[in-house]
């Protein structure tokens, strides 16, 4: 059973389009993290959200933590080829659980 479910699993869009990916669970989390992993590399932390309803922005990326702290979303505005990669949400607790990931391809 996967603790963190991410959707969609794959996403291919044209440069300049907007997109949203989701991270869902039936469990309540004290915080969630989003990582990005480029091909051939390890994941790199993008953001941590800790408060229900919290919205954080990182340039063209907007992260939201659900009010009930069970889900999170990542919205990318005007996607660029450099955004291509695997986006992983993660639960931070006594151990780390990672979601299944969304593989994003931005076509120039």
């Amino acid at each position, binding site marked *: 059973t996967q603790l963190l479910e991410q959707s969609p*699993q794959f996403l291919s869009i044209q440069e300049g389009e907007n997109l949203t990916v989701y991270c869902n669970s039936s469990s309540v989390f004290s915080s969630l993290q989003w990582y990005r992993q480029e091909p*051939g590399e*390890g994941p*790199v932390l993008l953001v*941590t959200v800790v408060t229900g309803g919290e919205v954080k922005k990182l340039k063209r990326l907007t992260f939201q933590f659900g009010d009930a702290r069970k889900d999170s979303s990542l919205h990318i505005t005007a996607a660029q080829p450099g955004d291509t990669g695997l986006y992983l949400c993660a639960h*931070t607790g006594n*151990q*780390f659980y*990672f979601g299944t990931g969304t593989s994003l391809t931005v076509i120039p």
Partner: protein
Amino acid sequence: NAGVTQTPKFRVLKTGQSMTLLCAQDMNHEYMYWYRQDPGMGLRLIHYSVGEGTTAKGEVPDGYNVSRLKKQNFLLGLESAAPSQTSVYFCASSYISGGAGNEQFFGPGTRLTVL
């Protein structure tokens, strides 16, 4: 600073062979982790360590052993490799575990194929 390094980067084994993956970090982190990454499965925790001389099981520990004799090193061993252990293995470290604001730093990964 090199961050987290892993050796080797690639390895091909035959079923039944053994090998050890080495992870090293130069950030003086207390916590270290070994994950495996398979298509459609995300990252799954194999074993982790909360400090020198300690180890603990993660989500998928069977078939693997670990050791943390020095704070900066975390070794992952496969005693008798099986095709099901074909995967990409990532090591990570963090200053603390859990809570807000914690960040895991990952190595570049080791791609292991078991024939």
